[in-house]
């Protein structure tokens, strides 16, 4: 397989959350969501808690995948920045480290220019964190300790379906 699983520990999550919370303040954003390219929600920050973030994550990944396909058709590698303008709220979507998608939701309290500026810095920081996560996962895999699932038994799995 070409992909490695994404394994995020507590300290990784704390570092990511710190970057997102700062970005919420610096960009005057309503909400920020970090999504794996495969559609899994990695972290979120801001005042939008309670929205259907699982669906948001899946649709964002689908959107990035579709536009990535479009990019290749016209000879581009990827479209790393997307902007969707709504009547009240807007979406700014960026691809970080080729694997993670940063979604910023903002309204009239902010502006596209400010969001772009702040996202650039935060994106670089997130890129470093995910590079560290990738290296850590590779080391753990090599040591055979990448997953708590390595030690589960067949009974554990059967119990999940017993009811």
């Amino acid at each position: 397989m070409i992909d490695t699983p994404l394994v995020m520990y507590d300290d990784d999550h704390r570092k990511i959350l710190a970057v997102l919370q700062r970005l919420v303040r610096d960009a005057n954003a309503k909400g920020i969501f970090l999504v794996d390219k495969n559609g899994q929600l990695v972290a979120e920050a801001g005042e939008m808690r309670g929205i259907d973030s699982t669906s948001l994550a899946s649709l964002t990944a689908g959107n990035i995948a579709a536009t990535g396909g479009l990019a290749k058709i016209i000879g581009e590698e990827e479209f790393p920045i997307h902007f969707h303008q709504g009547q009240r709220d807007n979406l700014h979507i960026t691809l970080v480290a080729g694997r993670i998608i940063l979604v910023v939701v903002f309204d009239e309290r902010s502006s596209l220019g400010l969001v772009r500026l702040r996202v650039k810095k935060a994106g670089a920081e997130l890129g470093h964190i995910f590079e560290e996560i990738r290296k850590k996962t590779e080391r753990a895999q090599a040591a055979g300790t990448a997953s708590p699932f390595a030690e589960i038994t067949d009974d554990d799995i059967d119990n999940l379906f017993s009811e």
Partner: protein
Amino acid sequence: MSFINYSSREINCKIVYYGPGLCGKTTNLQFIYSKTSPELKGKMISLATETERTLFFDFLPLALGQIRGFKTRFHLYTVPGQVFYDASRKLILKGVDGVVFVADSQIERMEANLESVDNLKINLKEQGYELEKIPYVVQYNKRDLPNAAPLDEMRRLLNTMGVPDFEACANLGKGVFDTLKATAKGVLTDLKRLGGGR
């Protein structure tokens, strides 16, 4: 490609329902959605045409329970079955952890089934996967129709690897959860075998 989150103690896996157009992939997800209690499921998303043919994908997030203190969450996706949506099918296979092939039992759809299995193999290969190496389950759907092909014949043509397979009538729910459980079990067993790595 699974996502293991120690912070929220969750593991997320992706299962894709594949198969020819109108074989019942979306119907499988709709039945699962209708029979799952609200606290275990998220919203089902269907990106479909006005005539309810899948345009991009259907998506259903599902929680199955806990293993060793980790919540197991499965994201179920369907692909659009119609031949000309091949570019979309490729995208949806990215990061897949397990595949369900939904075959249409009607004898006149056998050619379409075979074509779709070949297409699955090709598209997986393009993503760097091999069908032989990922958790894979075959479902023979629409067994209740009068023009259904004999089961032995379908097995011989569509399950050459001898993977777990199930007869189903997805619109009535028969075989739907058996298929899902076998696939989820395959994915979890694979995680265990690989120690979380690929």
